[in-house]
């Protein structure tokens, strides 16, 4: 019997060698989707689009990161608010906070991790959008009607990342398809031209509201708002006006009656909100960290550690007219530290008690209707209609109307109104650039910085309006700007 078993088993093992080995060693991942078998169905596209949105929450973009997990980046709010005359780093300027402090003082170098983090994470968002835009054409949506909407969302999100990158870094690569090959750098103007094309396309494809959702996804209004902003940035005010009037006439958005009702987890997705980045506590990874990043003391946020960053400057405090209801909704200058007894100031718009460490519920409002009204005033220029738009917001803030005779140029008055209305919402730095005021304002701010009683750090404004392209990218072949 053995004589038969032996040859049989030998034969069997030889068969095994020649028949199965190819399949046996071709294994595909179980726990991760892979590029070969994904982007095939409308369902794939839907979650791939969600993946682009996910990039908005990053610590380098609109989110804020627990320092302890990633080494600490701050995202766009550091690069736009702390950089501008609105806020500073706060009292802690050691360790990782030092990297923020040097940005505030225009002393950073190309190795600074914060601009680098924003650069990397913005391009990750762009690559996610490019993957969708490159692949969606081949996907058969059958009866589903949302293909255009997905294209529009991807275009809007990609444009939003590019808008930030172009203004922060200037001369940037602009890949528009899914590829690992390298695109050459283009000037910001070229980026804006592309964004106008893309956002026009996105606005035509996106719905006024998404039928299945009460918030969280880009709409036609969001695309038009960003489109108008880009038009203003490139000086095409009439095109901006067209886009802005379309938003207003859509009737989708209205001002919230009380300014303070715009803020806090309870007031999210209100009628004034055009596009906001979503966060939700209690899910371990979906909370936001603004409350802890900005608060003055841990007692304000349920005992979780605070960073005391993004602290309003005295300049900012003084920017408010007496009686402006927006002041107390936006910041607090009277907080007494329970341990030291010292008086502290902090941004209040995002204060909340998180459910866990770095697990706050606050969303980040990217665009809201008040911005649309002010941009329309900017687009149409000085005149009764423009003052009317501005005064809508002043009335809500409990302030008297302004008009052509009020002191100052129209531009100054508009910029001032934008500053206090949209304080700590990542607009100030871009406004200064767009109005051509950055040099002048920052020069004055740096000179006056030491004069107040709150110990703002002194610094020398270098005149640098762009961030250096991160050194790692230069090492890998990009030109420094």
């Amino acid at each position: 019997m053995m004589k038969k078993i032996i040859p049989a088993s030998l034969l069997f093992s030889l068969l095994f060698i020649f028949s199965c080995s190819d399949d046996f060693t071709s294994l595909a991942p179980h726990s991760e989707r892979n590029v070969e078998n994904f982007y095939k169905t409308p369902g794939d596209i839907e979650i791939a689009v969600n993946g682009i949105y996910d990039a908005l929450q990053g610590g380098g973009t609109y989110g804020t990161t627990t320092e302890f997990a990633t080494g600490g980046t701050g995202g766009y709010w550091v690069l736009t608010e702390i950089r501008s005359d609105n806020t500073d780093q706060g009292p802690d300027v050691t360790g990782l906070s030092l990297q923020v402090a040097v940005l505030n003082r225009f002393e950073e170098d190309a190795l600074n991790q914060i601009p680098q983090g924003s650069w990397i994470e913005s391009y990750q968002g762009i690559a996610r959008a490019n993957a969708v835009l490159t692949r969606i054409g081949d996907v058969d949506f059958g009866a589903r009607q949302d293909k255009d909407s997905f294209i529009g969302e991807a275009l809007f999100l990609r444009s939003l990342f590019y808008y930030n990158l172009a203004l922060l870094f200037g001369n940037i690569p602009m890949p528009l398809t899914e590829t690992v090959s390298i695109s050459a750098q283009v000037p910001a103007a070229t980026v804006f031209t592309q964004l106008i094309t893309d956002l026009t396309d996105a606005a035509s494809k996106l719905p006024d509201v998404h039928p299945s959702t009460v918030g969280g996804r880009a709409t036609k209004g969001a695309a038009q708002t960003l489109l108008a902003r880009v038009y203003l940035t490139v000086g095409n005010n009439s095109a901006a006006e067209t886009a802005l009037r379309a938003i207003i006439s859509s009737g989708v958005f209205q001002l919230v009656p009380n300014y303070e009702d715009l803020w806090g987890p309870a007031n999210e997705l209100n009628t004034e909100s055009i596009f906001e980045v979503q966060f939700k506590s209690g899910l371990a990874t979906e909370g936001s960290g603004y409350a802890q990043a900005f608060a003055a003391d841990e007692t304000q946020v349920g005992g979780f550690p605070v960073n005391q960053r993004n602290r309003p400057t005295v300049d900012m405090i003084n920017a408010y007219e007496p009686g402006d209801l927006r002041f107390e909704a936006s910041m607090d200058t009277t907080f007494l530290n329970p341990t030291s007894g010292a008086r502290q100031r902090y941004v209040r718009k995002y204060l909340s008690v998180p459910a866990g460490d770095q697990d706050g519920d606050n969303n980040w409002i990217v665009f809201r209707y008040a911005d649309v009204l002010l941009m329309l005033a900017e687009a149409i220029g000085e005149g009764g209609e423009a003052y009317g738009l501005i005064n809508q917001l002043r009335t809500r803030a409990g302030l008297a109307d302004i008009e052509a005779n009020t002191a100052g140029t129209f531009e100054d008055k508009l910029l001032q109104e934008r500053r206090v209305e949209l304080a700590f919402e990542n607009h100030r730095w871009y406004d200064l650039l767009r109005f051509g005021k950055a040099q002048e304002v920052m020069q004055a701010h740096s000179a006056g910085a030491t004069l107040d009683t709150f110990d703002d750090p002194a610094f020398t404004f270098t005149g640098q309006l762009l961030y250096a392209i991160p050194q790692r990218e230069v090492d890998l072949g990009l030109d420094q700007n």
Partner: protein
Amino acid sequence: MRTKVLLVCFVMSLMFIGQAFGQTHRVTGRVIDQDDRSPLPGLNIVVKNTQRGTTTDTDGRYALENVSPQDTLVFTYIGYGREEVPVGGRAVIDMFMESLVIRGEEVTVVGYGTQQRREITGSVARISTAALRDIPVLSFEHALQGQISGVDVQENTGEPGGQPNIRIRGTGSISAGNEPLYVLDGLPMSKNLDLQGSLFRRRAAFKPPATNPLAALNPNDIESIEVLKDASAAAIYGSRGSNGVILITTKKGKFGGKPTIRFDSYTGTQSVANQPDMMHAEELIAYTQDSRNNNYIQDLDPLNPSSPDFNPSYDPTNNDGRPNVGNYRLPDQYVSWEADGRTDTDWLDLIFSSAPITNTTVSVSGGGPNSSYYISGGYLKQDGIIENSQFKRYSFSAHFIGDLNESVTFGANIHASFTESDRVPANAPYFGRPPGIVYSAMVHSPVVKPLDDLGRPNQRAADGAQSFLGGGTTSASNPLAIIDGVDETLDNHRTFGNVYADISLMKDLTFRSMVGIDLDNFQGSFFRGNSLLYRTATTGDPYAQSNAATRTNWVWENTLNYKKSLRDVHNFTALVGYTAQKDVSESNTVIANQFPDDQVQTLTGGVISDGTSTKDEWSLVSLLARVNYNYNYKYLLTATIRSDRSSRFGPGNETGTFPSFSVAWRMMEEDFMRDRFGFLSELKLRASYGETGNFLIPNYGAIGLLSQGLYIDDDQPVVGVFPVTISNEELGWETTKQVDLGIDFALFEDRIYGTFDWYNSKTEDLLLQVGVQSQTGFTTALQNIGKVQNKGFELSLTSRNMVSAFQWSTEFNFSKNDNEVLELGPGTDEFPDGAPIFVSGGAGVRHITQVGAELGSYYGYVVDGIYQTEADIANAPRDDIAPAARPGDFRFKDVNGDGVINTDDRTITGSYHPDFIYGITNRFYFKNFDLSIFFQGVEGREILNLTARHMKNGEANFNSYDILTERWRSAAEPGNGETPRADRATGSHGQNNRPSSYQVEDGSYFRLRNLTIGYKLPRSLTSRVAQDVRIYVTGKNLFTSTDYIGFNPEVSLQSQNMLVQGEDYGAYPLTTTWIVGTNITF
């Protein structure tokens, strides 16, 4: 089960005895070699004290007439010695003869077979049963420590069940792992540490060392361990051979052997070894005052009458006149210490206690004429020296072999074990999450009371608690609260083994088919209670995690072995084989927090907040072949080849082929040698070249993967998906090419013998994450690029100094390895062989891997003495990092000589790679006594002592190493010349705490690893109950000579990350152990 086998054996032996009385009769039988069970022809059999006798035929059979039951048969055979067997009444006496082992003919396990030692052409080292038996170890890796040249066993942690790291001939890989391949009875084992899970919230740099997945194997069940060191020996394992191969052979029963019961047991106690000296309260108070005074004097100039800050009421011992900012004021505890009742807590004493250890193995082995068995059961319980840490192992092992007929033998070999680890967070700094116990105890101020007025761990609560204040030092969690508040267990069920059949197809040709399986299940749970306050936190942060993982690994191997001798001088063996192996692992993790209390510590007690589950697979199919040829054991050559195809390799690079070739010349077989150099009993020259691979690359590294995150839509989480890795179709194994030249020698009839090897090994196609422009959406791409070289030499020597009634032997081994990175990634103009890799370990960028240096070298400034006077500072190069250095601060070296000290002056300050390692064992036997003394040492290894950042920094913001009592005080009192002045704000003055050679310390050591004294009870006392009874006392880690300031000069916190080796940022210390034990053979 075991009792049944015993019973059967017992009955069988009674049957033999029952036949013992009768008349003369005919006796027949067969004489067979014990080991390979080949018949022994021409063997002499004589009836004792007569001339009557016979010899066996070619088949080993014999027949003897007229034998009486009272007779005794004497079997003698050259090379096998002499055996006497009383006939009793038996008509059939089969005899199994054990060959007398001549050193050169000792059988050594090599991959997929065995060879006589004299036939081996590669570099193979062996640890025998005898050596394993002498020194009781908890896990087999410890048995290798200091015993085999070229094998560096690093004991990074003293945690019960902790994992030693083994490096064979250096570190060749950056990211693909440097662990050797472990092969247990032919079964290549997995050592996947990911299965143990890890805390989601724990920073990767503070992840504790994994528990040892191979601790599941009871070392008492091991017969021998062979280490395949060079590429020619390891090439038969192809793409898994480049880190060396460790072959473990477990015990078997003996054919025809009487049932033997062995009982091995010991019990003992462990205590902390090599505890560092920390400051006492009084010393810390003086140091704190000094540091704050220096800061005050420097910043505000209160002593200078012309200064606006002149302060005539300044008193260095109290707070008179000092402002309450800038760390000038002295903490109250330090000013009013007298009034405080002089608390002087020794926190280290509080966390360590002596801990019992006990280990017992019982085995039964034996066999019948056609079968053998070995079964054993073991129990180990090791308490940790930190409360709540413990390791338990229950193990079971069985090996059965049976001849089905003359040509077919079956075997089954199963090991099953259950281990239970209770873990404590000891391997982390005080600010880790959870905080490290040892570190928290070290930094905790001695002026703080350990318990509050109600006897609870002193934390931030009422009732006399003050621990959070740190007593004026930086706050740390109370280590006693950490011990109480964290509960972590890791259970592991592991079953591994194989079944096999050896079939003799024809003369000289055998076929073996083996199916092996390795099943692994981990269950981990972690709970951090409300009761533990994290540093200054006012509320607890309860958190629980549950991990489960299961792995199935099977292998099927088919080999054909051919063995032929022509005219007795041309000896051939050949092997061809085909193997397939697959490993599937699945794991899941669930997380909960928001526990209202600490009553229920499973996840059901809180709110589930997160979870994951994953599945991973890899597979490997291989063809292998080996040919050995020797001419009369004089000229020998071996050639092997293995071809591996693995799921891990990219589709463009699917199959790797690994050849090797080696030759040897046994010069002693030459007549001219024998004539002239008679004192040599062996002289063998060896040369080999081989290529091996490292396939420990990520499972799906070649495939572009998508990951997922969540986004919130309509206030609900939705899944989002995005690409995270770039496809690389060409991704493959790392290749190591190694040349080895060796000499085996023996002198004076084997009184002295040894081995010397020189090797040069280059690992190419190193797997690296190469940086890519972020515009692609990725920052790195996994590529095979880079090269590392390890070269060195090894010597092992054994000398049997005295061989008479008093026996004394000395074993010595020495290994030196030089590690050098040759190439790293794509070249640039500045770095033609690739840019350096800077890596953050536990505390910022302190490691560099660069071409021309050792992998993972330390990186920082170089301390070049201490400024003694203002003139010293003025004359030294300007230090841009130190804003206001004063005498007593470090003078840093201007490395590039440009007259300024800045970031460009950072350089390599040492590495974890030792210059050389060595071990010396002396064994003595006299009458019934045995004694072994084993020393082991490492020279030229540096430790990156990150604890120095806090406890040696001069800032007195922590309790500190008492070496700070020898700090610089003035030019007249310069201290030990190595320790700077105390300065609470050195960060704004001398920056003494910048990453520098000050935190790099000599980790060389010389250690008395093991001292064992045994005594074999006289037979006369024990023969009624047992054959052999030995009792012994062993001490481990009895003495360590080292300059290292911390606990353990072998520490390496992130031992799995090659780029950041050698960090000490808090670790579970090693223990000194005393045990008493007994070995009993029944």
